[in-house]
């Protein structure tokens, strides 16, 4: 890799900032218009996944459930029809979750016989538990971001904190946007993915901050904009190689990892790309921009 590369990342901040701003605002608008497809974890309700080892028609199953007065709000097949896999759902405010869950079991056993199907998953989250899980997930993310901010301010300099935090909020928001657009289910697992992304993104940012700090120490005479640009350029090869490797692994997991972890790695893949982008174009340049603002005021 050549050492002469010298791209003006700070100069691109306006453009990048505009793009990110549009994406973030777009997500917020979509959140209130289209809405996030909360999974059973956060919304409360019943979710039963059942697989038959013989051919079962979705229509027949639907008829059976309505005939036996099983109060379901949604019944759909998973994958293609030959898999004979179905997902049964009920929102929490529409009936006794535990009763419905056991009722499904006894209706299936009566009609198809024990052993001709397997309950792959049977999740029940009471409305209270759902609300609490939502709250604890939100708290976990908020505290994680806050802790990172304090650490950066103490360990580096207060001027580094706003950029890093803006980048993290930016990443998390846009991934949520991706989940709104695809209407993929937003579950606890996805929260874990968001946290992993926060980890990656801040890792990227800190590595470059470290370089900024080093250049500043060696050349105190350089203006911050130059220092920042130089730090990004000097660490560029590392940024590219690391991201490419990690992205590669994430894509492999996304393709071959199976349905259970698919959505997790979907979030992670988008997040890795976003993390690199936000580090280079938002977090680091913002340090220079922020300092310029402060000095203007002073």
């Amino acid at each position: 890799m050549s050492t002469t590369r010298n791209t003006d990342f700070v100069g691109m901040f306006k453009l990048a900032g505009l793009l990110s701003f549009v994406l973030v605002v777009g997500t917020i608008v979509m959140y209130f218009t289209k809405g996030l497809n909360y999974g059973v974890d956060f919304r409360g309700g019943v979710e039963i996944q059942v697989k038959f080892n013989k051919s079962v028609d979705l229509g027949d199953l639907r008829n059976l459930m309505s005939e036996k007065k099983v109060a379901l709000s949604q019944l759909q097949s998973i994958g293609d029809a030959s898999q004979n896999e179905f997902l049964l759902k009920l929102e929490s405010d529409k009936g006794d979750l535990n009763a419905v869950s056991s009722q499904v079991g006894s209706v299936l056993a009566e009609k198809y016989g024990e052993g001709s199907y397997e309950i792959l998953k049977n999740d029940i989250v009471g409305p209270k538990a759902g609300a609490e899980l939502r709250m604890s997930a939100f708290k976990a993310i908020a505290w994680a971001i806050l802790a990172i901010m304090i650490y950066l301010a103490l360990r580096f300099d207060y001027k580094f904190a706003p950029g890093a935090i803006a980048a993290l909020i930016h990443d998390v928001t846009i991934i949520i946007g991706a989940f709104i657009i695809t209407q993929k289910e937003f579950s606890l697992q996805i929260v874990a993915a968001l946290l992993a992304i926060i980890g990656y993104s801040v890792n990227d940012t800190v590595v470059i901050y470290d370089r900024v700090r080093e250049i500043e120490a060696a050349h105190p005479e350089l203006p911050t904009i130059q220092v920042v640009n130089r730090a990004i350029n000097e660490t560029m090869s590392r940024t590219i190689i690391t991201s490419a490797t990690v992205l590669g692994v994430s894509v492999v997991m996304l393709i071959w990892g199976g349905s259970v972890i698919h959505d997790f790695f979907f979030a992670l893949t988008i997040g890795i790309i976003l993390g690199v982008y936000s580090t280079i174009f938002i977090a680091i340049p913002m340090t220079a921009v922020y300092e310029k603002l402060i000095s203007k005021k002073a």
Partner: protein
Amino acid sequence: MARGWWIRFSILVALVIGSLMTVTPTLFNLKEDSKFPLKTKINLGLDLQGGLYMVLGIDFNKVYRDEVIGYARKAQATLRDIGVESSLGTLDASDARDPKHSIILAKESDREAAKAKLREFYNYPLRLTKDTGTTLQYGLGRDFSREIEETALSKSIEVIRNRIDEFGVTEPEIVSQGASRIVVQLPGVKDIARAKDLIGRTAKLEFKFVNDEAGQGAMNDWLEKVRKAGIEYKKGERFSDYVTEINKLLVDDLPKGFEIAFSKTVSKTTNEITNLEPYLVEAGTSLTGEELQEAIVRIDPQQNRPYVGLEFKPAGAKIFEELTGANIGKRLAIILDGNVYSAPVIQSKIAGGSAQITLGAGDYNATMMEARDLALVLRAGALPVELVFEEQRVVGPSLGADAIDRAQVASFFGSLLVIIFMVAYYKLSGFIACAAIFVNVLLVMTSMVLVGATLSLPGIAGIALTVGMAVDGNIIIYERIREELRAGMSPFEAVRTGFEKAFWAILDANLTTALAGLCLLNFGTGPVRGFAVTLLIGIFTTVYTSYFVSKVLFEMYVGKGDRKTLSI
């Protein structure tokens, strides 16, 4: 070679050998009886091995209510002992968290004496909340309420454990979460409905006499009043709430000291109530399941129908004998969890201390199963409180197995990708990086075995993140070494400076992530915590391996400084 290299190298070798030994039982899935000296394997989370995960909440409001009624009765008896006549007043449950019960004194002149006596006896469990005329109203003492909560929680866990032990599940996990929740994890359980029923059933057995003097007409009037008040049982609500509401409405109509209870039959497939029969029974009880010595399934030879035979402890047997002797001709309702099972007429004094619970007619096998489970829960003891299922997760065994298989395949390809890339890009040094990453994953797994952490799917994601950070750690160092080489340093110097300068970047990056991990551990639940545990373990091993392990290997590679080129 740098000073102390041999020491660091020896530590590394010892660590790798020790770790390999530790993870051997897990990797090769050794049986318990294998000759290998170590046995402990990594615990797999329920999402990976299949099973039942439940969060049960405790309904303390009901406990408070029962306690305050119980103590009001005791207080009344205490007053009688000192010659103060009183009657039980009403229950005020307008604040469900702090119910109060009043005692009505026969003479207002007894008030000060009564108050003094009750303060002397019940200073701790009761607190005086109202004191007007002949009425003394008491709520539960603050510290006592807290004690009730703690006892209820630990007793519930104990009872659940007893039941699960009888049910036979290997490695169940029953722990409290906060002050009012219990988390139960049962790996490999297949019959979910049955397991839930066994765990969640309160199994509160009570013997109460039926008041038939009021007659059918009065009962019809009361139920008519309930209908007119618009109280009806709605599907999805708790039946016990419905019964409580009825009794609240009729509190002034029913004879003092009595309440309404139902005998309820529910269809298993449609989940609807098929039959509901009202009884007027005593509000309190003199005999409960706590007096039981034994509960066993017996079969009625005439009807060939299973039933549950009950044997009382000596003290209970005596109470039972006295009670039946004093109430010949009355009906005795056997009530389980608020539901009247049967109400046989007492023909004569029953000595010997045995009773029975007859079950509804139906399929022999179904009745047999019901009788067996009922006997089991009665033997294991009643839960001191009513538990509410707040959360349940069931993972079928094949879903977990499939997830492991796929994750293994994908992890293999992912690792392969990393190795190919690192070796292609960094040549010989790439091997060192791969070795360091391998040691990293090995150490993560070893730590998990040693601290007894549970590996779940989000945990695997945490390990994936660790590998990513480990790769990054090495890349940061290598890029730094390349920079220094370009700047004209000798390989020996470049390696030394590269590691030195990269160290702070690696440490800071990992510490920031560790902070996030700590927040997750603290505020997260379930899967998020599983992720946090592996992430935190991973951060420690990453800092160690990417800096120290790589360094030891690199120092071996560059030797004493005579090497002219570096394959990087």
